[in-house]
């Protein structure tokens, strides 16, 4: 099976400080890449670099056997991103926010009711996002991942602010996504293992 995504000899400086160098990884469909490391070790920067939000000092991200920068539009269509900022407008409700999402990227719009049911959000669709608790906001951010027709999920600290049930839900969703042939890259300081399909990068 060909690799879905790989990184070769990635290196990043922040000012004069070398955050990391010689990072290599390869990710097949059905696998999860866990980026581990203490606070400030560059987990988020590595994730942002892989997504194309910032440039590495050197090193390439290969997607479908070509550089991700060669076919940015295709690459971005295949990636969906979740960070500690959920990326929804606080004054709009969930449905209005997801409507913009559907205009920006390909989504499974017909799956919306099932996704809301799964994330236990049916009662919250009419409320503006600002009225939701931090944990609920994390849940609605998951709706974007589930609706997007993207194979690669990139998540920065997906377990923040979630209760036990929420954390279990995220782990379940990740496992399901892998089962369906998707791939995930997760930056987290929490341990996460999905039955042997996890690759790891440790930053120090």
């Amino acid at each position, binding site marked *: 099976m060909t690799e879905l995504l790989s990184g070769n000899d990635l290196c990043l400086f922040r000012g004069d400080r070398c955050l990391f160098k010689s990072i290599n990884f390869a990710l097949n469909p059905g696998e999860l890449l866990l980026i581990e490391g203490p606070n400030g070790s560059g987990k988020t920067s590595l994730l942002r670099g892989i997504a194309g939000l910032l440039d590495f000092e050197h090193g390439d991200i290969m997607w479908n056997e070509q550089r991700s920068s060669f076919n940015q539009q295709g690459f971005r269509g295949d990636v969906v991103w979740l960070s500690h900022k959920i990326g929804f407008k606080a004054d*709009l409700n969930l449905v209005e926010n997801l409507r913009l999402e559907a205009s920006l990227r390909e989504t499974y719009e017909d799956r919306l009711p099932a996704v809301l049911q799964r994330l236990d959000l049916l009662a919250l669709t009419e409320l503006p996002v600002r009225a939701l608790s931090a944990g609920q906001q994390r849940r609605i951010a998951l709706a974007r991942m589930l609706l997007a027709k993207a194979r690669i999920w990139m998540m920065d600290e997906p377990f923040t602010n979630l209760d036990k049930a929420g954390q279990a839900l995220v782990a379940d969703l990740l496992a399901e996504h892998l089962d369906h042939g998707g791939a995930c890259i997760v930056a987290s300081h929490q341990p996460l293992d999905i039955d042997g399909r996890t690759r790891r990068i440790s930053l120090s």
Partner: protein
Amino acid sequence: MTEPDHISPGLARGFCAVIRRDIVLAWKRPGDVVNPLFFFAMVSSLFPLAIGPGADELALTGPGVVWVAALLAALLSLNSLFLSDFEDGSLDQLLLSPQPLPLLALGKALAHWLISGLPLVVVSPLVAISFQMPAQTINVMLITLTFGTLSLSLLGSIGAALTVGLHRGAALLSLLILPLAMPILIFGARTVALAAADDAVSAGIYFLAAYCMLALTFAPFATAAALRISNE
């Protein structure tokens, strides 16, 4: 899972969705729209009080005052163009969407014009009447202000994109934008002054229209590049 075919939703759909979202957001927070308008009306109505109510003085200062007030009001509202998107993470989502970023940046700038520039143009005749401008001059002022505010929104989006990651970027934004805005101010105010003096105005209007087209063509690309740099 089959490999998704990467035909994103149509370009027009993404473009319109960005404009519509910003207008809906402005509708839900009318304060952001009203503030620059209030500033514009206040500044331009304070000038006659300070300078004197004589008809000659008003006719002389009117075009310049209206244009300076419009320019400052536009600068005032520009700072927030990408700020809320940056703070809530929507900007990352826009940058990572398969839609071309210049198109989305153009959408943002046009939405900004519809929210802040167009209302200003609509309100300006009221201010002009307080300066005793004749109807013909008001028409010219409306045309020049339309082109001028549109150019300001487009050029301003470059500056707003460059300063979005900085705290207190408002002063820097003004510094960046003012040199580019000078031709608009000079030609806009002088054209209205020429109209008031019953002189030929077409050259000034053509210049403003050309400047506006130039901004429309290049600003979205510059804004997109600036957003990628400042969001690193």
